[in-house]
C-alpha cells in the first residue's frame, strides 16, 4: 500500500443529524472510547455489511455479540491459529465495525503453531465423525429451542404448583426461559464456529498453493474446484422447484397460479386445494417440506429480527413456486444440472492439475484438494442449520415475550421488543415480575414506550446513512483467516475504500463471471427486495441465498461487501449471473435507475 493511503479515524465519524444519543442503544464495550483511543486508532476497522448491512436494532446486536466470542475463541483458544487472535467489534452510528487482532511475537507464534498443528491434524483426520456429531448437536439445540415456552403470568398459580411440590413461580419461569433463549442463541453460535475455522484454513491454503503456481488464478476458479455440488443451503429453493413440478404433474398448477395472482393468501389457497384429491396431495407434500426447509429467511443468514422466515410469510415461497411453475410449463429445465456441474468441476480440476510442474506438486495439490473438499461442504451448508433454521424460530420466541410486555403496557407492539438490548429486556422482565409478585404499578410504562419510539426514529435515520467502508490504520498484513476469506480484504480494495476513487468506476472482486449492462436497482434492506424489476441489476450491501427466487428476474448483482467465497457469491454463481462483490461503496455511489455495466470476471462496475 502506498504511504499516502490513509483512512479516517473512527473518532472523526460524525453522528448524523437527529441521531444524537444513538450510543444509548448499545453496551459500553461496543463503543469507541477515549480510554482505549490509542489502541483503537492503531488498527483497522471494516464495516461488516457482509453480516450486518443495516444499522442494528439493539436486540439484534445479540448476533454480533455471539459470533464475535464464538468465532474469536476458536482462532484464539481452541485452534490457536499461529499469528491470529480474534475479531474485535465496535458500533458506530448503528453499524458494526470489525477488526482482526494478530500475534506478532515470534516465540508466541511458535508455541501456538505446535498446538495448532496437533489439534488441526486431529480435526482433519476425524472430520467425518466430528461433522456427524456437530449436526446432531446443532439439531438437538434447535429442538431444545422449540421446547422453550413463554407463558403469560397468571393471576393465581395453578393447583399443581402447590400440590406437586413445585415451589417455583411463573414469574421465575419467565425469567428463566428468557435466559434459556439467550443461552440457546449463544450455544448455536458456539457450535457454528466449531467446524468453520478449519474449513476456511484448508481453503486458504489451497488457494495460496494454486496462486504459487498460477499467479493469476482467481478465487472463483479455486472455488469451482472445491465447491460441493449438493449444498444444504440450496435445498429450500430446490424444494420450491420440486413443488412446482409436482403441481404440473398433478395438474393443480393453473389453480395455484390463478389464486395466487388474485392475491389470495397462501393459507387460503391451501384450503381451496385441499378440497380435491390431487390438490390435497400437493398440500400434504408442501406441509412435509415446511419443517425444516421453510425455516428460511429473506436475508443473509437471517441476521435481523425483521427477516421474516418463509414459514411466517408463505407468500415468499409461493411467489418463487409460481415463477418456477411458469418456467417449467414453458418447457424450461428448472432443476440444477447436478451432473453437468460435477463434470465441469472435475474437468477444471484435472486440467489445472495437469499443468503443475512436477509429481511432487501434484501430490501436495491432491492432498490439499482432498482436505478442502472434505471440509468445504460444511462451509457452504452451515448457514441453513445455524442461521436460518435456528434464528427464524428464535426471533419468534422473542416476539412472544414482546406480547407479554405489550400486555403490561411496557411496549405498544410486539416488534418494539427488538429496540431493547437483551440486558434491558431482562431488566424489564424483572420489573414485570416484581410488579406481578408485589402488586405495585411498574415504572416502565411511563418511559419505555417513548424511549423505544425515539430509538425507532434514530434507526430509521441511520438506515439512510452510508457508513465509511474502513477506518483506522492499515496494517502491513492480515493473518486472521476469516477476515481474508469472508470479507475478501485486499490492498486494492483498501485503496478504493480510502477514497482513491476513479470517476465512474467502482472496483471490487469478480464474484461470478460475465459482463452485463443494464439499469441498476439499489436495495439496502431485504424487505424491499420486491421492488426489483425484471432485467435489472441488483445493487445491495450483500446478496443473500434466500433471495434465490428473485435471481431469475435479475441480470446481475453488485454488493458492497464480501469476498468471492462469502455465502452469497457462491449462490450468485449457481444462478449463473454476473456479480461484482465488495465494491465498498456500491449502494452509495450507484443510484436506482443508473445505467451500469458490470464485469463479473474483473470485478469492475462502470457507471454509464
Amino acid at each position, binding site marked *: *500500500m502506498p504511504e499516502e493511503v490513509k483512512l479516517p479515524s473512527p473518532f472523526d465519524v460524525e453522528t448524523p443529524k437527529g441521531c444524537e444519543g444513538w450510543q444509548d442503544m448499545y453496551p459500553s464495550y461496543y463503543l469507541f472510547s477515549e480510554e482505549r483511543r490509542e489502541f483503537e486508532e492503531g488498527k483497522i476497522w471494516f464495516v461488516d455489511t457482509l453480516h450486518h448491512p443495516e444499522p442494528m436494532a439493539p436486540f439484534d446486536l445479540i448476533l454480533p455479540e455471539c459470533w464475535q466470542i464464538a468465532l474469536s475463541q476458536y482462532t484464539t483458544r481452541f485452534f490457536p*491459529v*499461529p*499469528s*491470529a487472535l480474534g475479531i474485535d467489534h465496535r458500533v458506530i452510528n448503528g453499524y458494526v465495525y470489525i477488526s482482526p487482532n*494478530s500475534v506478532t511475537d515470534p516465540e508466541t*507464534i511458535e508455541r501456538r*503453531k505446535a498446538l*495448532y*498443528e496437533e489439534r*488441526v*491434524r486431529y480435526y*482433519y483426520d476425524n472430520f467425518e465423525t466430528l461433522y456427524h456429531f456437530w449436526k446432531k448437536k446443532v439439531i438437538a439445540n434447535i429442538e431444545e429451542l422449540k421446547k422453550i415456552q413463554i407463558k403469560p403470568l397468571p393471576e393465581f398459580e395453578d393447583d399443581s404448583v402447590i400440590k406437586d411440590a413445585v415451589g417455583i413461580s411463573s414469574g421465575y419461569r419467565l425469567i428463566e426461559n428468557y435466559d434459556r433463549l439467550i443461552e440457546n442463541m449463544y450455544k448455536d453460535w458456539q457450535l457454528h464456529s466449531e467446524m468453520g475455522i478449519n474449513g476456511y*484454513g*484448508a481453503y*486458504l*491454503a489451497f488457494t*495460496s*498453493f494454486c496462486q*504459487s*503456481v*498460477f*499467479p*493469476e*488464478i482467481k478465487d472463483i*476458479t479455486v472455488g*469451482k474446484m472445491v465447491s460441493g455440488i449438493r449444498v444444504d443451503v440450496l435445498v429450500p429453493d430446490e424444494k420450491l422447484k420440486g413443488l412446482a413440478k409436482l403441481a404440473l404433474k398433478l395438474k393443480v398448477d393453473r389453480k395455484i397460479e390463478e389464486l395466487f395472482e388474485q392475491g389470495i393468501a397462501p393459507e387460503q389457497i391451501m384450503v381451496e386445494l385441499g378440497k380435491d384429491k390431487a390438490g390435497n396431495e400437493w398440500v400434504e407434500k408442501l406441509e412435509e417440506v415446511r419443517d425444516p426447509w421453510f425455516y428460511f429467511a429473506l436475508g443473509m443468514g437471517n441476521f435481523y429480527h425483521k427477516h421474516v422466515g418463509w414459514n411466517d410469510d408463505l407468500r415468499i415461497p409461493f411467489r418463487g413456486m409460481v415463477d418456477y411453475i411458469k418456467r417449467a410449463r414453458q418447457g424450461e429445465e428448472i432443476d440444477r444440472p447436478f451432473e453437468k456441474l460435477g463434470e465441469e468441476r472435475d*474437468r*477444471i480440476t484435472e*486440467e*489445472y492439475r*495437469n*499443468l503443475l*510442474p*512436477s509429481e*511432487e*506438486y501434484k*501430490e*501436495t495439490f491432491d*492432498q*490439499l484438494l*482432498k*482436505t478442502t473438499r472434505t471440509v468445504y461442504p460444511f462451509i457452504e451448508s452451515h448457514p441453513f442449520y445455524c442461521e436460518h433454521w435456528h434464528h427464524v424460530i428464535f426471533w419468534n420466541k422473542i416476539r412472544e415475550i414482546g406480547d407479554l410486555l405489550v400486555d403490561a403496557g411496557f411496549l405498544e407492539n410486539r416488534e418494539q421488543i427488538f429496540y431493547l438490548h437483551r440486558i434491558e429486556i431482562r431488566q424489564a422482565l424483572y420489573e414485570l415480575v416484581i410488579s406481578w409478585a408485589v402488586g405495585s404499578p411498574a415504572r416502565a410504562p411511563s418511559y419505555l414506550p417513548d424511549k423505544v419510539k425515539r430509538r425507532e426514529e434514530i434507526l430509521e435515520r441511520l438506515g439512510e446513512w452510508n457508513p465509511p467502508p474502513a477506518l483506522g490504520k*492499515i*496494517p*502491513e*498484513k*492480515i*493473518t*486472521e*483467516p476469516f477476515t*481474508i476469506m469472508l470479507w475478501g*480484504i*485486499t*490492498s486494492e480494495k*483498501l485503496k478504493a475504500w480510502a477514497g482513491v476513487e476513479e470517476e465512474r468506476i467502482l472496483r471490487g472482486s469478480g464474484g461470478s*463471471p460475465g459482463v452485463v449492462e443494464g439499469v441498476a436497482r439499489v436495495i439496502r434492506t431485504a424487505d424491499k427486495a420486491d421492488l426489483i424489476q425484471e432485467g435489472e441489476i441488483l445493487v445491495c450491501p450483500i446478496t443473500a441465498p434466500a433471495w434465490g427466487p428473485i435471481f431469475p428476474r435479475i441480470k446481475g448483482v453488485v454488493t458492497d461487501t464480501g469476498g468471492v467465497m462469502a455465502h452469497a457469491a457462491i449462490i450468485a454463481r449457481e444462478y449463473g449471473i454476473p456479480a461484482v462483490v465488495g465494491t465498498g461503496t456500491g449502494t452509495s455511489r450507484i443510484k436506482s435507475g443508473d445505467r451500469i455495466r458490470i464485469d463479473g*470476471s*474483473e470485478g469492475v462496475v462502470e457507471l454509464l
Partner: protein
Amino acid sequence: MEQKLIYWMRELDKSALNIVGKKCANLGEMSNMGLPAPPGFALSVVGYERFMKETGVGQEIHEYLQQNYSTETRKKASEAEAASKAIRKMIEDKTMPENMETEIIDAYHTLCEEIGRDAVEVSVRSSGAVSMPGQFETYLYVRGAGEVITHVIRCWGSTFTPRAIMFRTEKGLGSGIWPIGVAVIKMVNAKAAGIMFTLNPVTGDRSKITIEANWGLGESVVSGRVEPDRFKINKITLEIEERRLGRKEEEYIYDSDKRIVEFKEVPVERQKEFCLTDEEIGKLVNLGKQGERLFGGEPQDMEWAIDKDLPTEENILLLQARPETIWASKQKKEVPHARSALDYITSTLVEGKKLK
C-alpha cells in the same frame, strides 16, 4: 542413401530437423498432427548443398572469403556488409541446375493443383537447423514457377546477410556456407494475424493463453511495429479475461496490382475495432491447447493467421509453433517447495495476507 530434394510437409515431422531445417520440420509436425498449417513443400538442405556444388558458387564463396574476410581478426560491420553484398550477388547471379529446377517446378504445380488455382501465391521461407531468428530472409506473395525458383535462390543467399555472417564469425562457426532448408507454402491471405503464447509470458501462469493480434499480416505483430490488440484467456475455463484494444495504426497488406506488401495506415474505424471476434478467439484457444498437448505439454509460442480466402470453419491457420522461451529463460520465481497439506495450511496461516 541419397536424400531427397523435396519433401511434402505432411511427410515430415520434428525428426526431420537436420534434413529440412527447423521451420519445415515444425510445419511438417503440425500438419502431421492434424493442426491446420498451410499446405506446401520443403527443399531439404541437400538442395542448398547441391546448388553450391553444381553451380560452383560454393567454391567461389570459399575463395572470396579467404581473400577478403579472414576470420582471424575481429571484423567490423562494414566489412561484413561488403562481404554480404558480394556473396549474395554471386549466388543470385547463378541459375538453378536444370534437374533441380524441374523437380521444384513440378512440386509447385502439384501444390497449385491441390489448391485448385493456377499460379498460387506462396511464401518462400528459410529454415535453418538451428533457430537464428531474423538472420535469414523470408519472401511473401511469390507467384509462378519462375519466381519460386528465383526466391529459393535468394533464400539460400540470405544465409550471407551481414548479421548472419557476423553472428557465425563471432560464435566461431566460420563464415562459409551454411546449409538451410527452404519452405514453400501457400501464402495465407491474412484478414488478421499475430502470435499466441500458451501461457502468460509475464507471470509464467500456465493456465492462461495470451494473444496479440493486428489486422493484415502477422509481421506487424512479430516485429513489434504496432501496438496490437491483446487478449488474455483462461485456458481451462475458456473465459476471455482481458481484452485490450491496441492502437493498430498500421498494418501490412498486400497490394496485388503493385505486387508489394505495404505497411499502410489502418482506417480509424478499424483501429477502434477488435481485430478478432470472440468466436475466433475461442477457435484460436482450442488450437493453442491442442498444439500444446501435441508438443509434449510444453508451453508454445505460435504464429497464426486468419485466411480470408478460406471458409469460416477452416480459416484459422498456424504458421509456426515453437517452445516458448521468454518466460522459460527468466529467473523463475522461487515457488514454495511442495510440502504436506498440513504444513501448507499452517504456513499459510502464519504468513497471512500482505496489504502493503
